[in-house]
């Protein structure tokens, strides 16, 4: 019974995403980014400097970096898209009154919340997978580079979107639809910057600076997952050979280490916790 309602609401959420303008905006942004990256990668091979082109190893390192850069763009689009879907879908329905007739049905609020969450996760995951695969194909056809662990990387990116939209749902039970989207994206950006600061800290051997990154990655796991995803996309052998200095400086589009199981467990726990809080807040809310 409950599971059936979860699926009904999830399907409705997907239908909403598909029929609203968000999807068109996402598609346009994504296509623009993919086209731009295709053009960039096509030029990459022919770049000449100091009289020669890149060696294969160098090319792989640069390709890793640029791929990560473009994937960051994609994850940003996914984050923006889902955060701005997650907010309106709950807070917007409460504000407009759509929630009144829906919640007067024999269903629990937590069921509706879970359904919306599931729908958004599927949407975000689907977007990341399709756009990511398209990007891999572009890189492969232009510079003949295929990331070493594409499935893990994409799964981590999808998890990152899930984290952000869960946060968006929690925020949308408390504040207005627009505000929840803005705050979620703002926090996403802040953790990313904190992650970069932490990376620089590592590079300089400054413990307290490095801590900034670690703490923020625990508080909001988006950046940690993103770094795990980068690690799965980059060519580690090329990195070991040529990447020393880049790694030392904490370059934002290369990652030092894969994710630990503990961190993944924490992420799962974090999502469950935030979703539980959102359910609690939603249940207490007067419509």
């Amino acid at each position, binding site marked *: 019974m409950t599971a059936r309602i979860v699926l*009904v609401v999830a399907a*409705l959420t997907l239908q909403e995403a598909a029929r609203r303008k968000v999807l068109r905006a996402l598609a346009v942004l994504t296509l623009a980014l993919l086209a731009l990256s295709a053009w960039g990668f096509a030029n990459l091979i022919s770049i000449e400097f100091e009289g020669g082109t890149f060696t294969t190893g160098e090319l792989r390192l640069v390709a890793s970096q640029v791929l990560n850069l473009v994937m960051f763009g994609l994850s940003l689009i996914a984050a923006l898209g889902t955060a701005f879907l997650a907010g309106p879908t709950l807070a917007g329905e409460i504000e407009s*009154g759509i929630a*009144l007739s829906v919640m007067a*049905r*024999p*269903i629990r609020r937590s069921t509706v919340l879970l359904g919306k969450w599931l729908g958004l996760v599927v949407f975000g995951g689907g977007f990341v997978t399709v756009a990511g695969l398209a990007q891999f194909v572009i890189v492969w056809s232009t510079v003949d580079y295929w990331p070493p662990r594409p499935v893990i990387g994409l799964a981590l990116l999808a998890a990152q979107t899930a984290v952000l939209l869960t946060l968006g749902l929690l925020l949308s039970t408390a504040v207005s639809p627009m505000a929840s989207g803005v705050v979620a994206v703002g926090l996403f950006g802040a953790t990313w910057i904190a992650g970069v600061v932490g990376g620089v800290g590592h590079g300089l051997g400054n413990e307290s600076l490095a801590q900034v990154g670690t703490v923020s990655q625990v508080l909001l796991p988006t950046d940690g997952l993103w770094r795990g995803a980068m690690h799965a996309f980059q060519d580690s052998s090329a990195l070991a050979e040529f990447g020393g200095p880049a790694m030392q400086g904490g370059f934002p589009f290369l990652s030092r280490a894969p994710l630990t199981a503990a961190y993944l467990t924490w992420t799962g726990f974090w999502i469950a916790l935030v979703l539980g809080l959102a359910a609690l807040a939603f249940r207490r809310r*007067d419509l």
Partner: protein
Amino acid sequence: MTRDTAARPGAPLLDADVQALASPAPAVWCSGLRKQYRRRTAVDGVSFTVGRGEIVGLLGPNGAGKTTVIKILLGLVRPDAGDVLLLGRPARDPRSRVRVGYLPELFRYQPWLTPAEVLALHVRLAGVEVPVGERRECLAAVGLADRAGDRVGGFSKGMQQRLGLAVALVARPEFVVLDEPTSALDPIGRADVRDLLLALREREVAVLLNSHLIGEVERVCDRVVILDKGRVAASGTLAELLGGRELRLRLGEVNAEAEARLAAAGPLTRSGDLFTVALPAAPDSTTVPDLVAGLVGLGVRVHAVEPGRISLEERLLDILRAEGGDRR
């Protein structure tokens, strides 16, 4: 299940209401509802019952707490105190709403869906099997048959309210709550709603109707509950509330004796040559002719005699003014 909760021995919650013990359980039973928004008390100790198949009007001025009471009944707002039984089940249990239909005061439906899809969604959420044909009939009943395939986002306000009515009625409810169902409707739509309500009565579906159109309430409701400032100011059947009939007479040359004769028939008010006598609830058939004959006998010139029924509107205004006077 219904009987279990209704007949739980010694439950203080149910002792107060004998009707709750009778089977089947009433459509809704609520007791001592209280709700405060910040420092403002919106609902203050409201209790009433809507029996099966009964149409009850919920009346009161703006801000009286009608919508808040309705939202508490449907579990949309958490009361600070009080109990609600919906179709025999505590309202905390979502399953109590399986056979309940609701048209909110603020009616909005997913703008990206078509009316047919909105109905399909609500049927699915209600967990009831309703064939496509019946859903289409439901849309036709509210006059939306030819718009079934358009997006709701492009609907006018009145069309959205019509869709709301269809949503309230589609899942074969046994109890329907309508919060100002005609606020956006044209005159024909209002007449349609009246017909819908009468059809619901035929099918013994209970209705709680909140409306500012008193004529509408008077025509279809069996009972009314009047709220004022969050409290029940009055409630009862229309006959109880409107019990008195009145007689309006335009008279000339009225002397003291004639005035005494009039006052003997019932409480008398006079303005110029217009006399109004409030008659008892069930006057016998000779009261009026006897009175007129008596007056003529006393030399009074009788210009006009017209029976009048106290309208619900007048009664409502009386009650609310009296309430206002009490508080001041």
